[in-house]
Structure formats: C-alpha cells, structure tokens
C-alpha cells in the first residue's frame, strides 16, 4: 500500500498539476489562517505557504527542480503583475507628481540605508564573505539584485533567498514599525515598504490602499535602478 502511494506520488509529481494545486491550496489555507488569527504580522501568508510547501517537499523527498517545473506557471505571472503596477501608479500620478522631490530624496536615503545597513550589520554579526556580497543588493527586486551580486562575486541564488526573506520581513514588520514611528501618511508608508522590500512589500501595501500600493510599486522600480547604481560604488569605496 505504502509502495503504491509513493508510486502514485512519483507519477503525479512529474506533471505540473500537483505543484500548482499544492501551491494554491497552501496559499489559500495560509491566507485563511492569517485572517482567522487576526492578521498578525509574523503569520505572513507568503511565509506560511513557503514553510508548508517546503515541509511537504522535504517529507516526500521531492526536489525543488521538480516542484518548480509545475510552479513556474505561477512564477511566470510575476512579470505581467509587475507591468500591471503601472495601473495604480497612473491612477495616483497627480499625487506622485506633487511629491516628486520628497520621493526622490526618501528613495535615495532609503536605498543607501539598505546597502549600508546590510553591509554594516553583516560585518558586525560576522557573516562570511560570500554571504556579505550577496546581502548588499537584497532590497532590490530579485532579477536586479541577482545581477548585482553576480558582478561583485556573490552567489545569485543566495541573493534570491535574501531578497525573498527581506520581502517577507518588510511586508510583515514594516506596517507595525511605521505605525510605531507615527508615519501615517499612506504615500510615505508605501514608499518605505516598496524601497525596503520590493514586490512582496508592494503586495502588502496594496492591501492597505491604492495610494500605498502605487507609491510602493514606484519605489520598487526606482530602487531597482538606485541599487544597481549604488551597490558597486559603495562596495568599491569600502572594500
């Protein structure tokens, strides 16, 4: 019986259906738990879903590559969704224009803070050299961060992990931190979350308001550019 079950699993795992269904079921269960628990910051749905899927893959001895063959159909939609961020940005454009200088100044300050704080904290806490380079661009969206890390001798796939973890941390801890600091302006909240934690943060900001989502999406795009320009300069100056 056990053997038959594992045969069936191997058969199903070879088609995209299992990975897709597992991801959707886990995500909806995670969202349900998140809402039922009163939306606590640390029970972030992305975090819960990733933990559940990793647990199933490890327990069944399924490789990430096998999972991703199916899950890539969900992954693919990230591109179109990023393009679609133009829609809230367009709807909020009047507001963005009015605060163009503030956006530019905050973004630059935030982008530099992200790079310096990751390198500084990394050095203080003694992470190893390969991890350190891979940490520097982690607030930028994944493809940009991976490209930067690769150019400086880091590990792109490790950078992708840091980017995702930074996204989850920013999305879950960002809103309570901003409330604690009395930052109540939706534009400032969105900009802060998007600068620090790219698309995952933007997904969270969109749940609060279209204003926060628009500023977060804008910050994600601008910080991709700022990080690509700033990390090599900071790295050359420091090391």
């Amino acid at each position, binding site marked *: 019986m056990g053997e038959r079950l594992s045969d069936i699993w191997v058969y199903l795992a070879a088609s995209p259906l299992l990975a897709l269904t597992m991801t959707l079921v886990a*995500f909806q269960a995670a969202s349900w738990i998140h809402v039922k628990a009163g939306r606590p910051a640390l029970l972030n749905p992305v975090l819960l879903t990733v933990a559940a899927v990793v647990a199933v893959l*490890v327990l069944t001895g399924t490789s990430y590559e096998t999972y991703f063959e199916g899950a890539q159909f969900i992954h693919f939609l990230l591109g179109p969704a990023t393009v*679609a961020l133009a*829609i809230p940005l367009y709807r909020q454009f009047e507001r963005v224009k009015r605060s163009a200088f503030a956006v530019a*100044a905050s973004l630059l300050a935030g982008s530099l803070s992200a790079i310096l704080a990751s390198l500084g904290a990394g050095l203080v806490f003694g992470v190893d050299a390969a991890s350190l380079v891979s940490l520097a661009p982690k*607030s930028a*969206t994944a493809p940009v961060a991976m490209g930067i890390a690769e150019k400086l001798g880091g590990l792109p796939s490790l950078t992708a992990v840091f980017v995702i973890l930074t996204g989850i941390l920013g999305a879950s801890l960002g809103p309570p931190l901003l409330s604690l600091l009395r930052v109540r302006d939706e534009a400032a909240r969105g900009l802060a979350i998007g600068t620090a934690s790219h698309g995952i943060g933007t997904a969270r900001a969109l749940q609060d308001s279209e204003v926060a989502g628009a500023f977060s999406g804008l910050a994600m795009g601008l910080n991709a550019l700022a990080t690509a320009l700033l990390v090599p300069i900071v790295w050359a100056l420091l090391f």
Partner: protein
Amino acid sequence: MLPALTAILLCQLAGETIAAATGLPLPGPVIGMAILFLVLLLRGSVPTDLGQVGGALLANLSLLFVPAGVGIMTHAARLEAEALPLGATLVLSTLATIAVTGLVMNRLGRTGRRTDG
C-alpha cells in the same frame, strides 16, 4: 480580457527587449511597467478590461512569490550554519531601511491631505 492580457504581455516583451538590447540595469518587467505607464499617460485613462485584469493580478501578487520563495530550501545548509548572524542582519537592515525611508518621506512629503498625529 484577452486584449488587456495581450497589452500587458506586449509591454513586458518590449521591456525585456529593451533590457537585453541596452544592458540597462533594470529587469524587463520593470521597464514594461514604465512603458505601460507612459501608454496610460498618453491615452488619458485606464481601459475597463485592463483595470480588471491588472486588478486580478495585483490582488494575488503575494501568491506569485511562493515558487521563488520555496527556493530557500536549496540553501538550507548555509542558512542553518549562519542562521543567527544572517537573521539579525536581515531583520536590522530591513527595519532600518523602512524607518529611514518612511521618516524622510513623512517629513518632506506632506501633501496637504493628511491628518497630523
């Protein structure tokens, strides 16, 4: 629905093409976002079906990060070995970035429609 989805994919394709051709340090979809934004600006409004398709994608944006997130399992050994220093670095730097950006924008970006606290 199809025209809207096609328009979004065309913007992304144009973005990927520009990224590959120019070597700009931006991913194709981010350039695609800028292109769609310019098109909307020229057009002066968001077509209804584009608003619906875009809204559906963005409403589920978190889900789309799950497949990449599961990739964490491929670096389990390093993450375990360096769990504490990496965890502390990630938490501190992320909080610092959010605090700096939010506070600067809050100070400079008063757009007038905000209740002061």
